[in-house]
């Protein structure tokens, strides 16, 4: 068999997202990670005989909000269904989920170029700014947590019944980089709406991947393989890179791809067969008779609309246009709404909005601050940027002010005064320094006059040294040039 010039992968994602709510999906037990085992359970989430579910309004509102943010159609009437299967982490041995009438259908996730892996941000795939269609978003209940021992497993039902949103993409993704960017972009949207903390490493966002390969140009999909145990966004990329390579290698050797579920082993950097899908599960879905259909068109949708945040793409465009920040900076700010709020406060009182962005995103962020609780008031950055732009301090001094600002937060103006850092901009004083420099360095003066323009740097250095770094460098440059050409 002759191998075609190029293979392409076809990738679809199913993303489970833990919703940020006070209580579980169908009972009033608290929805919180880390409680003592089986301390956050009640007859409902333990599946005790006779208990009944009642849906959490906030979880429904947050799912609708997600749908609105991602441009989905919101079902006017949504329903819950029972998905039947036996498993010890599923107390009722059926999961309340949504099958025929999910809360949201359609919609899309736009891939933010800056949310591609760093090494791909300049690539064509990043620049393509593709939009990945969604199939649906539905709401269901999470399962319990199991711990495995030698011969037995132990179950903690605290997580059982907590609200879980499932977002299913169309098989629109073509590369591991796109899958990486999809998850990053989706996470950004979820964060902006306060829907979830969506941290994959904490299990707040979990992702199953379906992937197949086919020759470029072929319409039919290849046999798909499901990947599990993906615990970080970069893990998804690595797993896909490995698995696509494995599948291409196999088909090039003329082997058939098995329809199976494979487990990603991050340490080994490879996927391994978990189970082959001889028989499709028969989940016997049917409408949950304990719950009435949920009407979203009588207030629920309105409530969600009133909570709509400025979406990442719109926010980025505004920051770039109005504040002059770079596309990259806009993307970073849009990804972290707390940081962005901090920045917007800092930029509010100053003309130097782009400079403020540099301070906050380069220097401040490098100190790994918590902008929500930082004692460094955001206005201080506006002030600091102003001092530099207005020539009160030079950039070397500004670094000193910044360091002091972090150590003992206070107004940058006060810090400049305290440290005696104000720049010397007095022409008379500067001229005196320059005269001294010219007198002390006849060689450099001669070099400069004979055409070696770099020789002026030695004179500038002399002035800076004499002035203890306080001389305004721009003014020194002007004065020296005038004196030397006289």
């Amino acid at each position: 068999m002759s191998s075609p010039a190029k293979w392409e992968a076809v990738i679809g994602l199913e993303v489970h997202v833990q919703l940020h709510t006070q209580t579980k999906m169908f009972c009033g037990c608290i929805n919180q990670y880390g409680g003592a085992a089986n301390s956050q359970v009640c007859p409902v989430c333990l599946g005790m005989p006779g208990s009944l579910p009642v849906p959490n309004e906030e979880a429904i509102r947050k799912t609708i909000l997600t749908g609105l943010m991602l441009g989905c159609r919101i079902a006017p009437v949504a329903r819950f269904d029972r998905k039947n299967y036996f498993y010890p982490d599923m107390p009722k041995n059926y999961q309340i989920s949504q099958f025929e009438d999910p809360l949201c259908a359609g919609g899309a996730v736009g891939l933010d170029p800056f949310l591609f892996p760093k090494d791909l941000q300049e690539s064509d795939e990043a620049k393509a700014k593709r939009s990945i269609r969604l199939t649906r978003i539905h709401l269901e209940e999470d399962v319990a947590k199991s711990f495995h021992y030698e011969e037995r497993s132990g179950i903690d039902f605290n997580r059982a019944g907590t609200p879980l949103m499932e977002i299913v993409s169309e098989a629109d993704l073509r590369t591991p980089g796109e899958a990486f960017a999809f998850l990053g972009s989706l996470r950004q949207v979820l964060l902006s709406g306060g829907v979830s903390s969506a941290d994959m490493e904490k299990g707040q966002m979990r992702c199953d991947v379906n992937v197949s390969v086919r020759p470029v140009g072929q319409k039919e999909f290849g046999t798909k393989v499901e990947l599990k145990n993906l615990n970080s966004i970069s893990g998804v990329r690595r797993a896909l890179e490995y698995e696509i390579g494995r599948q291409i290698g196999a088909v090039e050797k003329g082997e058939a791809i098995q329809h199976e579920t494979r487990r990603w082993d991050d340490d080994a950097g490879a996927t391994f067969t978990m189970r082959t899908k001889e028989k499709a599960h028969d989940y016997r879905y049917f409408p949950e008779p304990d719950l009435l259909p949920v009407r979203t068109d009588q207030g629920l949708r309105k409530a969600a609309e009133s909570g709509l945040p400025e979406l990442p793409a719109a926010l980025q465009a505004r920051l770039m246009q109005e504040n002059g920040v770079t596309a990259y900076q806009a993307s970073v700010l849009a990804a972290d709404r707390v940081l962005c709020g901090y920045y917007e406060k800092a930029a509010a009182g100053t003309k130097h909005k782009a400079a403020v962005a540099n301070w906050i995103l380069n220097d401040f962020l490098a100190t790994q601050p918590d902008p929500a609780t930082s004692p460094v008031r955001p206005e201080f950055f506006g002030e600091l940027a102003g001092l530099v732009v207005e020539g009160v301090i030079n950039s070397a001094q500004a670094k000193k002010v910044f360091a002091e600002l972090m150590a003992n937060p206070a107004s940058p103006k006060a810090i400049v005064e305290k440290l005696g850092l104000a720049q010397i901009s007095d022409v008379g004083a500067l001229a005196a320094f320059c005269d001294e420099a010219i007198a002390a360095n006849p060689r450099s003066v001669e070099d400069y006059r004979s055409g070696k323009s770099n020789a002026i740097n030695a004179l500038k250095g002399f002035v800076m040294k004499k002035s203890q770094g306080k001389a305004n460098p721009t003014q020194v440059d002007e004065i020296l040039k005038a004196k030397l050409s006289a």
Partner: protein
Amino acid sequence: MSLAHETLASLRRRLSSKEIHSRDIVKDLLTEIGTREKTVHAFTHIDEKAALAAAEKADSSLPLGGIPIALKDNLNALGDPCTCSSKILEGYKAPYDATAVARLRQAGAIFLGRTNMDEFAMGSSTENSALGITRNPWDSTRIPGGSSGGSAAAVAGRLAIAALGSDTGGSIRQPAALCGCVGLKPTYGRISRYGLVAFASSLDQIGPLTRTVEDSAILLSALAGHDPRDNTTDLRKPETFLSKPTGSVQGLRVGLPKEYFLPGMSPEAEAAVRGAAHWFEKNGATLVEVSLPHTPAAIAVYYILATAEASANLARFDGVRYGRRAVEPKDLLDLYHRSRSEGFGPEVKRRIILGTFVLSQGYADAYYRKAQKVRGLLRQDFESAFTKCDLLLTPTSPEPAFPLGERTQDPLKMYLADVFTISTNLAGNGAISLPCGFTKSNLPIGLQLIGPHFGEEKILQAAHAYEQSHDFWKRMPPV
């Protein structure tokens, strides 16, 4: 006379005037139980000490203060067993109160006895109990009906003043008819199902079994109303039912559905029900012939939908979190299979298999989804009938109590016993069964009055008027 023979209404009056004490009632009931329970076997569990202790503390100023009530053994009451007459719930103690139980407690009621039932309410004869059969107090060779057979036999046999039952396809009304007491299945959504172990969630309703219509109205008043724990309960405000009995049926339009008077039914039963219809007409009601054309399909629809829901509802009985667990399972699958196969009786297994099948891939459209649609038609039948009449009058059961063991090997024939009761569950309507006569061999015959959705007041008024001009309710069973 033993207080066990009195109605709830009468005891309530005597308790509040302090003429008697709750302990007197409990003691009289325990005496009756001591002599006849070994024959009738209405109960799965009786905690005499707890009942006596509760009676001592009873507050007779409350609406049901000090009244002992028997509970069907599928209602959770904190700290008590709740076996559903199944081996699979061996050792289970309820960690919470059902809303119905909590409301009775709040109204001052005390509890005496958990009543026998068909396992998980699946049956029409109480012969499907893993804890022994219950006998009909009118003839101990016959079944009491089911699935609330224990509740009906206890109330009719003067072993309880009143009891709660549950009705999924007739499980309150049919045993009430066969035991000669009053059984009310309220409109779906009237009483919270929270804490009632589910058989078929879209059909189950809790309701009272009592000696009189007034007693049923008193209990319904205490039980009815929205419960934030049950998404399917209705929001309307609490009512006191039958607070002003009219004693009249003047002007009432009574519908007789022609599909409910079948050639194969017991002639004695038919005659008694037609006699009741005649009484209504004689007392100023108009009789209207109506049609519920999809009635012949009701059994099939019911046994598809009820078993489908049950197959999921009963999945939780797996030996993991409570109840019976198989000894030394070799792995997880073995634990599931053996716990469930050893724990469930044959009728429950049969229905789980049927329900699993009608939902399974390739068959769900032909069975489950088709049945849902026909259920819609059945509901339309009732809606259109109620444009022509105020209440429907029908037999409760096509025949009086049949002999023990007669149908245990023929499930389909057993299912057909529910033909007059299941449609109201499918349509969601409320209905009552009350005695309307006796056969020559002294077996009670039941009359069913069906109302429109949330038409309980209408049902109770008419039933009360009929009951008070007859003395069927005063007759004592011989056992």
